[in-house]
């Protein structure tokens, strides 16, 4: 996987979020969306190049070409269009991909390049004034698809545990949880009975199929939810998983949280394996 970070600033956080939410919308899974993206965290004025409030976005794709295409498209439709928004590179890297390099042609010849402290920016005249964008941003190798499952006695209890987990995980840098609210209800398995489908519902964890399939669920588990994590490195994903699992488990069996599991797809999906016992600092059995 390849990942990049973009810093979005605006007149205030409200408009930075409008821009960032649009840019990271429909970006839950590389399977159907091309990229997985999310808001990493808020940025204070001291942390942004132009001294305004903003948010940092992480975006991941299966390859550099798709990432470049998606970034350019989303920049053009979501950041260029958003009032007062500006975009800057969020990471240093030898590999650089276009942020405003091609978007500048929207200026129809009136765009202005400025090289400030060795970094090139583009000023594109737009109807609200000027859109400021850095020419490129960095791209690095990244990891997608770290996950764990929360098995609950009821749907509301499973969701409450996931919400607690997400709140804790959002404090970890370099990771995002790309699904709605950070939580997935439709975890998948590899393959399907239908030849054209390469992924289908994870029947072993579907509570309504307990009597029909080779289930992974105990009789009293009524709802399972998954948290998927993408990150820039292994350690930060592992750390996010640890704090997330710990936060979810705080609800305990009394709170309806019966078990934590993970989708490992037979260990065949991707080169990185996040082993829950090791992540939580326990000896493997």
């Amino acid at each position: 996987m390849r990942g990049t970070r973009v810093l979005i600033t605006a007149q205030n956080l409200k408009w930075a979020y409008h821009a960032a939410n649009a840019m990271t919308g429909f970006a839950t899974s590389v399977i159907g969306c091309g990229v997985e993206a999310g808001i990493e965290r808020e940025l204070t004025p001291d942390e942004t190049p132009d001294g305004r409030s903003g948010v940092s976005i992480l975006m991941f794709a299966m390859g550099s070409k798709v990432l470049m295409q998606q970034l350019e498209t989303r920049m053009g439709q979501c950041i260029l269009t958003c009032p007062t928004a500006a975009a800057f590179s969020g990471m240093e890297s030898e590999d650089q991909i276009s942020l405003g390099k091609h978007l500048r042609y929207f200026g129809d010849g009136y765009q202005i390049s400025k090289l400030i402290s060795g970094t090139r920016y583009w000023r594109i005249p737009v109807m609200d004034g000027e859109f400021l964008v850095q020419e490129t941003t960095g791209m690095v190798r990244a990891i997608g698809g770290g996950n764990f499952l929360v098995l609950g006695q009821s749907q509301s209890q499973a969701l409450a545990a996931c919400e607690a987990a997400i709140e804790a995980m959002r404090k970890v840098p370099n990771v995002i949880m790309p699904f709605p609210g950070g939580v997935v209800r439709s975890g998948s398995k590899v393959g399907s009975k239908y030849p054209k489908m390469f992924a289908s519902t994870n029947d072993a964890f579907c509570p309504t199929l307990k009597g029909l399939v080779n289930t992974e669920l105990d009789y009293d588990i009524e709802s399972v939810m998954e948290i998927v994590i993408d990150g820039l490195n292994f350690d930060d994903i592992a750390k996010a998983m640890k704090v997330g699992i710990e936060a979810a488990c705080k609800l305990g069996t009394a709170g309806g949280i019966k078990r934590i599991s993970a989708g490992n797809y037979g260990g065949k999906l991707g080169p990185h394996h996040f082993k829950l016992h090791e992540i939580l600092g326990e000896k493997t059995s």
Partner: protein
Amino acid sequence: MTALTFTQKTNPAFKLDCSRLTPNELIGLSNEKIKNISLTNSKNSPKVSDFFEVSGENTEIIIFKNPSLQLNYIGHKMRHGSIMIEGDCGDFLGASMQGGSIVCQGNAGDRVGDCMRRGLILVDGNAGDYCGSRMIAGTIGIYGKVGNYVGFSMKRGTLLLTQTPLHATIQDCGMHTLPFLALLFRAFKPLPSLFSNIQAKRVQRFAGDLACGGNGEILIISP
């Protein structure tokens, strides 16, 4: 390493061509070689040592001490590094400049940044006529007054001024809050210039020279 410093010893009655005293020209040269550099390419031309004391080693940072209006072409075709002028300088400051930065803490002569392509020139004092003439790109800031024909034939680039004696082919585009100024002024902060204290958020934007496409801009700031 300390900055390479040229301290002017005498004030000549004629103009000195300092175009060879740039970081890209002096890189790798010893002080002895620098002292023997001819200030022009003509026969019997004066040497650097005739007019300057030379000290320091770091050719990426050049300082002119006790300079005068007789020093022409400082920073000519400069590509990298920085030049600091602790006083006045002559004509063609930063002419055909291609990178790096120049700070002049005094006044500059005519044609500051003539044909400049890239880089930054800041003048704390006044500048003469034809400031930014034939400019291709880059940034020039003049804190004091400017002479006539500012931005004459400029194609692109940015001129930061504090007043508006502009000619007919420079057109007013109104008052604006330009986001890139926050980055630019932040980059000025560490520089030993009056521009490091600028807080202005709003500027009056003029486009020009319309006789050469009008993609250049003159921004009038209120420091």
